[in-house]
């Protein structure tokens, strides 16, 4: 028994070491890629791209469910995006509030019979409306089906552009975000089949008429920790995976896809819990099965701002759902593992997700239990344990500070000294007890999935109006 516990503790150590080394490697790759990207940006004149006669049209798909508070502001901002060939398709997904009526009034919608070919499956459409204020706006009113995927599928059926960009109705896009995310597509349209942009945390920032007026860090600890997480995930993780053409997630809040390909794979899976991850996994599978030469790009400068949970309960639900989504995608795609046909996706990306993402809560919590047991049996080397904790803590902090440094070196959205100081301090604070709680939430997610509990639990959202703090004062109110 003692031998077994000793073995388990050492295994946990090597697991941590491998996980952190993998992230360290990604950090190095991300630094290199970002440096190259910044140089590349110096030679990209966005106005040249905008004036280019060959800019392909893009359909923005905006699923909206009970968004009466923010839909008009969101749509005005989307219509104001800096992109020459734009079509905006709002999918009113069975809203029970006045979302449709408010849009009808504000944008003078009239019922039309726009071309709607039910190529991918979605719930029945009740009506199609085009705006008299701006002809680029089309609204689909459909019966609710309880999933964002279903709403996006309806939008796909109506989209008339070669590229679709899925945007959350409650997110805020920067004015040139679409132009920026299309840069890799325009540079290599034959290979680039999808591109994802960076999603940043909106909480705490000042918003005016639905646009970011001043970027500030949120006040609540739980929100700041999420900022560090988002920086780590996007500026390090996605940047590095995309460098090796192994990007497995294009965020559902902001991503561009080739319309024909998304239709070819049957659109979004309606029952998927993480529909964005599921779509990208199926795209990889489809393209690799067809021996296609393709790339899924990540562009770190087009920014989409989104609100993150500001209370523990909502955060726990979100993280449990993400974990369920992970399993929901990895399990059906397990046949892609270690198959030569799926190349680095099968040999690197998917195994990484299995070992260091999906199984992480199981391994870590089992590890904690084995450490406790070893302590109870008197088989624990306290010196080793202390050193292990210090090492794990220090290493993880290097990664987190590395992501803040990456932000500092590249896009530098947080200009205020206090914000950076707080970000750095949370790099030290996030490991206790947030990390342990996070593991428990993720474990709960796995358990819920295995029990067949797929219920969507609503997240408490403050909405843009609440995040929108003092519009005239110098400092914003906290999001919470």
């Amino acid at each position: 028994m003692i031998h077994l516990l000793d073995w388990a503790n050492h295994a946990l150590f090597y697991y941590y070491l491998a996980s952190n080394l993998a992230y360290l490697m990604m950090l190095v790759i991300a630094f290199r890629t970002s440096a190259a990207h910044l140089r590349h940006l110096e030679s990209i004149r966005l106005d040249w791209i905008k004036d280019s006669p060959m800019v392909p049209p893009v359909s923005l798909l905006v699923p909206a469910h009970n968004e009466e508070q923010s839909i008009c502001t969101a749509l005005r901002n989307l219509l104001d995006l800096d992109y020459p060939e734009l079509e905006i398709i709002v999918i009113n997904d069975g809203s029970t509030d006045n979302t449709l009526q408010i849009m009808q009034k504000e944008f003078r919608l009239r019922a039309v019979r726009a071309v709607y070919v039910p190529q991918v499956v979605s719930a029945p459409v009740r009506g199609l409306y085009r705006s008299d204020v701006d002809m680029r706006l089309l609204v689909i009113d459909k019966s609710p089906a309880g999933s964002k995927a279903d709403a996006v599928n309806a939008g796909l059926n109506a989209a008339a552009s070669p590229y679709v960009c899925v945007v959350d109705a409650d997110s805020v896009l920067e004015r040139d975000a679409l132009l920026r995310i299309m840069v890799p597509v325009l540079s290599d349209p034959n290979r680039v089949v999808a591109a994802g942009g960076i999603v940043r945390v909106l909480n705490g920032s000042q918003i005016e008429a639905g646009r970011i007026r001043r970027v500030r860090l949120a006040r609540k600890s739980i929100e700041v920790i999420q900022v560090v997480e988002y920086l780590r995930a996007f500026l390090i993780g996605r940047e590095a995976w995309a460098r090796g053409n192994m990007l497995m997630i294009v965020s559902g809040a902001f991503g561009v896809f080739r319309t024909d390909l998304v239709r070819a794979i049957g659109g979004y899976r309606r029952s998927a819990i993480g529909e964005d991850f599921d779509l990208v996994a199926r795209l990889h599978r489809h393209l690799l099965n067809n021996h296609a030469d393709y790339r899924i790009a990540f562009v770190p400068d087009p920014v989409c701002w989104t609100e993150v949970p500001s209370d523990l309960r909502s955060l726990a639900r979100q993280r449990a759902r993400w974990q369920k989504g992970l399993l929901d995608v990895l399990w059906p795609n397990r046949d892609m593992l270690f198959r030569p046909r799926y190349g680095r996706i099968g040999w690197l990306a998917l195994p990484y997700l299995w070992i260091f993402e999906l199984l992480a809560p199981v391994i870590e919590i089992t590890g904690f239990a084995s450490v406790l047991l070893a302590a109870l049996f008197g088989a624990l080397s306290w010196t080793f344990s202390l050193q292990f904790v210090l090492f794990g803590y220090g290493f993880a902090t290097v990664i987190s500070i590395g992501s803040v440094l990456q932000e500092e070196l590249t896009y530098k959205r947080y200009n205020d000294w206090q914000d950076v100081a707080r970000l750095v301090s949370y790099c030290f604070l996030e490991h206790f007890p947030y990390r342990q709680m996070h593991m428990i939430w993720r474990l709960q997610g796995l358990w819920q999935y295995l029990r067949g509990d797929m219920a969507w639990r609503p997240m408490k959202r403050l909405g843009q109006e609440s995040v929108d703090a003092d519009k005239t004062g110098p400092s914003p109110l906290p999001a919470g």
Partner: protein
Amino acid sequence: MGSAFDTFRKLGPAAFVLKAIIFVIVADVLLLAFILLRRTYRKWYFANRDARMLAIRQQWDALISGEIPFAAWRTKTSERELIEAMVLDAYEVANPEESARLLKFMRASGLVEKRILEARHHHGWRRHKALVALARTRAPEGIRALAEGLRDRDSETRLAALRGLGRMACPEAAKEILNWVDDAGLVVPVLPLQSALIQTCAERPQELLPHLHHADKPVREVLGRVLGEVATPLLGSELMRFADDDLPELRAAAARGLSYLNALEAVNILSELAKDTVWFVRLRAMVSLGGFCHPTALPILVQGLTDSNRLVRLRAAEGLVDFKTELLPIFEKVVALQDQYGLHAFLTALENAGLQASLVAAIKNRNSGMETNETLLEVLRTANLSTPPPAPEENTLVKAAAQS
């Protein structure tokens, strides 16, 4: 010699972890120190830069007119780069008179020449940067250096040079791109190449024709697409030759170019192209036919509503809706087609053009049978063809068109 694992084990976890802890603490401290130093430096740098910009702004006219000797700032790298950035920003939004003054300044001060030199002699991202700056000046003397950039080994540099030449938007730049494509083939992605060619060939599209005759298939495809975009009435007869070309891109270009010819001359060829096997050829043909708004095009446009491609259907419908005074007979024809998708396309175009009300009025004012009118109104209201279609009344215009 023991394995790496043996060595690892001999180290003992405690010793190893101790070293690792020291390493990560040092790494944390270094990262923090770097952030701190960089912030401080940037704060100083930008304050300094802002102050310099303000000072330059205050002496702007003296600077541009050359009153301040060029030698006073030209040799100081940071000063030169700042002035160049400010001048180029101003140049991009300037009126023609101011543009000429700024270009004269850039030439006289040697900024253009410096960039040409850098574009020729530097490599990697420095060349890249020089090419972009050179393109921003739009100085014709930079075309040669940009063209040399097309032959760089690095694909990003080639793209920068290509975009730069596109920015020049003149036939000389087109010539350089076309000559390079002839030599090197397709070594850049198609979209930027097409964009650059469209921008540079717009003034003199005939530059494309000699290259179209001897280029390889992939290059011909690109050139064909470009030709389709930039075709002018001057090329009309030349384009007709491409109507039966093997390449769909060239047939599409012909379809587009034919829209500049006389309707009676073009409709016959376009009606053939409207039956092409490739959808975008049919699309181009429909757009051209719709543009004529001529009765001879009507039957082909009506038939276009049954096309398998939704974009072709939509363009055909848009073409039909442009016959504003003949909407009723056209609608009867559309209903007679018994094609649900075609009907949808027509109604979409009708609604987008805001002509639904006038069609309703035309049906109500018609003196023929009430039942037929009711059926048509029902189809218009429900967009559903489940009811048997009324026998279309032969309209003189449509009949004449069909006979022709």
